[in-house]
């Protein structure tokens, strides 16, 4: 066995470039697939991010003619769709792919081939979306990429209003990437339930793995309505069905319900993983065990349950009955309770610790502040009458970018700095990391803090231009400057990754003095992860090893 492994490692080093690329294409290794998900996600993050910068440049001044309306509408559709399905989902499932087997002491996910299948479905689905820039014209010459918005409200997506094939590319791309995500979900649940190492009861799983399971169940529940709706829309467009075709008696609201039954849980599918990252990183850099492990896990499960019953808070303005509005306002506000518990428990973890302000911790602390603000603006939006004013304005845009960037992207960066040494064997440069953090923090706040006020001043979202004299000029100019600064920060990050891959400091197996199982194996881990199956006695096996006189299992 040992010999075989040594042999394959030597062969690999000697393979020519093409052979090594081929290795990546045919791989079923969870670590390689995880890295491919993350790498692919970062690629689309840059593309969709540049589209956002173009939109911000167009909106920097009133009555601007830099980007024509239809091109702008394509940007906003592609930016939204890509950031959710081509960036958030793959990066987070990529992390789960990479981390879950390592953290539960397994050698791979339960179904490696299914994992590979899921990745390639996602990959080609993602390409399909951007291929619409080339193929979307169809026979009509009716415009390339989809321009219907990321939630694509019917009947704007029907043949009458969306000619050509752009919307079809949008439908098929989302359908394929959703199937890929379902495969990942099945894999994560099976791995976490059936392949934990000796001694790791469910109550001793790392928080990340718990939250991976929660998210996987949410994917299994939330993605089918989306896929069903996409099929119905495809039938409308090609087979003359009339589900959403209002001109033939279809229902525009039906689409909204289908979409948000998926769409709201989706927000939590994106944010719960980063709760997991925070629950690993904050304890390690505070040098303290997570405060209230059981409550942290229970709160996440509660969020998952409640999030399945809040979708119509996206629809307070569609003319629901007062009882309907009150119900969804109530369920939405209830999310605040478990979310609050999580924030308090993170503070409880920091309290009394010895905080090391390394880059992953900087990002995590910024996450705590920004996520708190995002939660509070979320409560304002849950106040249904207030939402009648705020919905579909830049206030909403600012709110959900506080969640998606202020919380999720910040924590993805934190996780990148934290686990990069594990995946590559080299540290990311600390100094470049600091520059990245401060630039990104300043850019983020310059962009999204003013946009709350633009929304309150009556600026609807998704407008390609606005007129002078409405008090929107200054806010938008600042926001655009911030967007450019954020782009520069991401450039610094890319430079850091490239630089550190080549010349980064050697990391060793456990650079952060951390406590979960992945840090007990080499960096990067060998293909088989662990030479012998580990055995654990507590939630922090490496703490027990490092402190044999004061192990965790005495107290848990």
């Amino acid at each position, binding site marked *: 066995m040992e010999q075989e492994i040594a042999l394959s490692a030597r062969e690999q080093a000697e393979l020519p470039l093409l052979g090594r690329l081929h290795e990546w294409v045919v791989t079923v290794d969870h670590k390689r697939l995880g890295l491919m998900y993350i790498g692919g996600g970062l690629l689309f993050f840059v593309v969709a991010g540049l589209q956002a910068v173009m939109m911000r440049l167009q909106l920097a001044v009133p009555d601007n003619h830099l980007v024509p309306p239809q091109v702008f509408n394509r940007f906003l559709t592609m930016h939204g769709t890509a950031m959710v399905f081509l960036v958030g989902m793959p990066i987070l499932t990529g992390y789960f792919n990479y981390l879950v087997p390592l953290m539960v002491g397994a050698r791979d996910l339960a179904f490696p081939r299914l994992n590979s299948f899921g990745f390639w479905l996602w990959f080609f689905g993602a390409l399909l979306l951007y291929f619409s820039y080339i193929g979307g014209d169809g026979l009509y010459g009716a415009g390339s990429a989809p321009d219907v*918005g990321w939630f694509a409200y019917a009947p704007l997506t029907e043949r009458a209003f969306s000619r050509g094939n752009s919307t079809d590319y949008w439908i098929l791309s989302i359908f394929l990437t959703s199937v890929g995500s379902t495969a990942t979900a099945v894999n994560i649940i099976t791995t976490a339930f059936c392949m934990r190492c000796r001694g790791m009861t469910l109550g001793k799983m790392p928080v990340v793995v718990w939250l991976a399971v929660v998210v996987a169940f949410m994917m299994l529940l939330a993605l089918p309505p989306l896929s069903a709706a996409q099929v119905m829309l495809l039938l409308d467009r090609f087979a003359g069905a009339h589900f959403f075709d209002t001109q033939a008696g279809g229902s525009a609201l039906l689409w909204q319900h289908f979409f948000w039954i998926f769409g709201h849980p989706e927000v939590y599918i994106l944010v719960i993983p980063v709760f997991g990252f925070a629950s690993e990183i904050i304890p390690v850099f505070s040098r303290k065990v997570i405060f209230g492990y059981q409550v942290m896990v229970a709160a996440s499960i509660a969020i998952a349950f409640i999030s399945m019953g809040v979708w119509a808070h996206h629809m307070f303005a569609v003319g629901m009955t007062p009882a309907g509005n009150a119900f969804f306002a109530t369920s939405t506000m*209830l999310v605040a309770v478990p979310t609050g518990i999580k924030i308090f428990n993170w503070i409880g973890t920091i309290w009394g610790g010895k905080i090391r302000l390394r880059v992953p911790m900087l990002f995590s602390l910024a996450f705590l502040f920004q996520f708190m603000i995002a939660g509070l603006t979320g409560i304002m939006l849950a106040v249904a009458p207030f939402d009648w*004013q705020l919905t579909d304005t830049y206030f909403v845009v600012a709110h959900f970018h506080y969640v998606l960037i202020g919380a999720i992207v910040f924590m993805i960066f934190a996780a990148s700095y934290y686990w990069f040494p594990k995946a590559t064997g080299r540290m990311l440069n600390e100094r470049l990391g600091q520059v990245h953090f401060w630039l990104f923090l300043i850019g983020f706040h310059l962009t999204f803090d003013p946009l709350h006020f633009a929304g309150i001043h*009556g600026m609807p979202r998704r407008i390609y231009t606005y007129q002078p*004299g409405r008090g929107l000029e200054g806010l938008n100019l600042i926001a655009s400057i911030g967007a450019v600064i954020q782009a520069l920060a991401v450039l610094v990050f890319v430079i850091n990754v490239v630089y550190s891959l080549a010349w980064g400091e050697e990391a060793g197996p456990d650079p952060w*003095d951390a406590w979960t199982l992945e840090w007990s194996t080499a960096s990067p881990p060998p293909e088989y992860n662990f030479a012998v199956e580990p055995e654990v006695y507590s939630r922090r096996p490496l703490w027990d090893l490092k402190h044999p006189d004061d192990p965790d299992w005495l107290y848990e």
Partner: protein
Amino acid sequence: MELPESTPRRRARPLRCITRCLVVIGIVAAATCAAASDWGMGAANSRLAPPDMFNPVSTPAYDIETLAWFAIAVCAGIALVVGALLAYSIIRFRSRAGDEEREPPQVYGSNPIEFAWTVVPLLIVFVLILTTARTIYTVEAAIAPPNAIRIRVIGHQWWWEVRYPGLKIVTANEIHVPVSDPAHPTPTFLDLESADVAHSFWVPRLAGKTDVIPNRRNTMWIEPRRPGVYLGQCAEFCGTEHALMLLRVVVEPRAQWDQWVAAQQKTAAASSDRGRRIFESTACVNCHTIKGTVADGRFGPDLTHFMSRETIGSGAAMNTHDNLRIWIKDPAVIKPGALMPRMNLSDADIDAVAGYLESLH
């Protein structure tokens, strides 16, 4: 392995970068600004107060504002307390140099504390839910009094059709309503429908937004207390020109509104000049109605009293002679993507048609 803690000196570096970036971006923005054009809307919009939801002039908007301030106060309070706690714990518990040897005491949790920070948020949420529900019912369950003004607003790609069913008035993009005296309230109730895709009717100073959805009739109401012109805008993405689907609500004293009604109910002056002949012999009549003439199209805005409106292109430009000529020549110059085609008229014909439209008071 432990790198030294970051020092303030190191953080100064990104700040210098940012200053440089700001200068560069400022120059780029100024250059773009210079290239931008303005159809007279800057001056016109500056005359109107910004459509700010915290400066309401009508009953549902007042109710919403009160509730909004309450929600903001609660959230700001929470933000201050939690933010201060977080900031304090970060500053207080930073690891000091030379103190890295020993790990801090490990605390696994505390049932009483965790119980407390579950119950307190629950109580806050409970109060917020009750106040929210009360306002929802006050606004949504209101019943129209018999003397309420009734208006049908129909969303089109990318303009608003406005009908006063009882008064037999059809107009577009500018809604006239009487001011409501609190002693004898005359609220306005709007039925919202769509001719094509989903839109959303939003005049922030008068009320919250209500979606305008095809195959569905939504209702909302306003009760303006102060005369003035209030800016509104479509708030649901509805295609290419969603951004330039604006509307104005003109709130007038009752007597003035009665005059406006009387003027709108008249048919247009029947002149028989060249502009009218050109208008009636081109495709204009397929989409536009001018009462008292053969033009009876329903696809575009009713032009019977065109000159009673301040703007053209649903608020895309001021209704001036120059803008009108540009619009007739090629609407895409002002509103690219607008569904009105270029009519390919000669300059002389454009002048004539503009002259005719300008006679429609």
